[in-house]
């Protein structure tokens, strides 16, 4: 057996909760240069963690995510103008306390990264970005915000970010905060006291397709551990377990949420990725817009489809997709067994002509060509409660 786990590298970056993960016996992996827990075998491992989030509640350390604050200078509207220029969604529609999914694009209409934009105040925005692209993103924002009257601040190391996810997340977190969580809508946020920490950002966001919250607390080790422990304690009655990047990946895949470097990258444009509804062409100019206009006129040559394996076999990232004659027609971007559906699922790029539901697509799995079919996405949608 050869392990695919990346070996430990001494220079890897650690979140303030690294020691906690190791004490819990987490299996650690190198994720974009970060030493992160992939699963916690002692509390059941990946599948148990996945199921905890779908049925109860789980907690993830997502402190490796980056945070960029953009505030206006003397000119009112400076921050908004910068955010509008560097991201594709329409930030002018955001109320204070509201967030939305968006992305930063290259002039080619392909992705620098996907981001969640929070409007903190009248002239104040927070962009939450991916870990693996942190430096690139911050440089990109600084460079492209230069022409606007705004200040760009990298707060990535200032926060420990915990994602509390699952149908019991609200009940759990309500025990630790004075903020009224029941009135926070999906993709809205508030500030409140959490674990006696005043003015904590509490957002009803996540990357699991389940209800849940993300909280941002000061990143010193003592505070981070205190909050982690209180969350675990408060969650005990709901059956909380710590969850790693493995479950985070299967949860987001079932919900068809994009992962940078997989469904989106500097080679893939917005139309191909199917993220049209987060791209507001009518809002005015922004980086990538012109290229997207040309791309739309030209038409897409590939589109993201959901696959379900028909034959025995698991489609994995980067496996080739073929038609029935064995000609390569596309590639798998993410593939895994789905713990909720008990099927082997995948996202893949395929020609639009092969994207209709029920179309047979063959995935090359080692020496075998295994049949799959195009299915509706998201693979999983949370039940209305």
């Amino acid at each position, binding site marked *: 057996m050869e392990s695919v786990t990346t*070996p430990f590298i001494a220079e890897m970056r650690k979140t303030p909760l690294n020691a906690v993960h190791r004490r819990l016996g987490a299996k650690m992996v190198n994720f974009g240069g970060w030493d992160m827990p992939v699963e916690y075998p002692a509390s059941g491992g990946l599948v148990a963690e996945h199921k905890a989030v779908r049925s109860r509640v789980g907690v993830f350390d997502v402190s490796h995510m980056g945070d960029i604050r953009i505030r206006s200078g003397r000119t009112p509207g400076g921050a908004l103008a910068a955010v509008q220029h560097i991201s594709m969604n329409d930030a002018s529609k955001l109320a204070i306390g509201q967030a939305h999914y968006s992305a930063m694009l290259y002039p080619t209409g392909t992705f620098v990264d996907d981001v969640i934009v929070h409007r903190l105040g009248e002239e104040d925005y927070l962009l939450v970005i991916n870990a693996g692209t942190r430096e690139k993103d911050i440089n990109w924002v600084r460079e492209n915000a230069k022409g606007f009257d705004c200040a760009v601040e990298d707060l990535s190391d200032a926060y420990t970010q915990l994602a509390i996810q699952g149908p019991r997340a609200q009940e759990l977190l309500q025990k630790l905060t004075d903020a009224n969580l029941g009135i926070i809508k999906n993709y809205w946020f508030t500030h409140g006291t959490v674990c006696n920490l005043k003015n904590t950002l509490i957002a009803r966001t996540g990357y699991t397709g389940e209800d849940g919250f993300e909280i941002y607390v000061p990143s010193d080790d003592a505070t981070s551990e205190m909050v982690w422990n209180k969350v675990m304690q408060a969650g005990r009655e709901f059956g909380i377990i710590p969850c790693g990047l*493995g479950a985070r990946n299967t949860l987001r895949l079932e919900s068809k949420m994009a992962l940078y470097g997989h469904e989106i990258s500097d080679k893939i444009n917005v139309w191909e990725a199917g993220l049209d509804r987060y791209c507001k062409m009518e809002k005015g100019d922004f980086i990538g817009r012109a290229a997207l206009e040309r791309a739309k006129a030209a038409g897409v040559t590939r589109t993201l489809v959901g696959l379900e394996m028909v034959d025995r076999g698991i489609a994995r990232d980067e496996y080739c997709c073929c038609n029935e004659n064995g000609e390569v027609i596309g590639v798998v971007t993410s593939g895994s067994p789905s*713990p909720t559906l008990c099927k082997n699922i995948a996202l893949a790029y395929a020609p639009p002509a092969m994207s209709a539901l029920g179309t047979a697509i063959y995935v090359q799995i080692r020496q075998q060509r295994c049949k799959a079919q195009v299915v509706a996405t998201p693979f999983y949608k949370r039940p209305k409660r």
Partner: protein
Amino acid sequence: MAYPANYRYTKEHEWVDVKGDVAAIGITDYAQHELGDVVFVELPKVGSKTEAGKTFGTVESVKAVSDIYAPASGEVVEANDVLHNTPEKINSDPHGEGWLIKVRLANPAEISGLMDTAAYEAYIASQSKEASA
């Protein structure tokens, strides 16, 4: 979990249990731990050949795909096909019911080149130390 004293082991974490000229082959407890919950197994057909050091099958967890290397050369005389429906046996009983294939050895001398139990235990102890350094 104890490593059976009469087995021999590879650096890639396979075990071999030789009885006469037939060797049962599986992955070790250490290996199944590293992988996590096994959800899929691909085994060679009876009658196919294995070659020492070459892959003969695949074991997959939700997260990872692992090639399995043959500790010895020979002909596959039996494959543990019940694992297709119960791959979790590799987790629960890696050295027993979770065996993968049985091979009629072409060159039994290859076995003497493998680690004995004490050597394998020392080997995985050094591996774990590296991982937590």
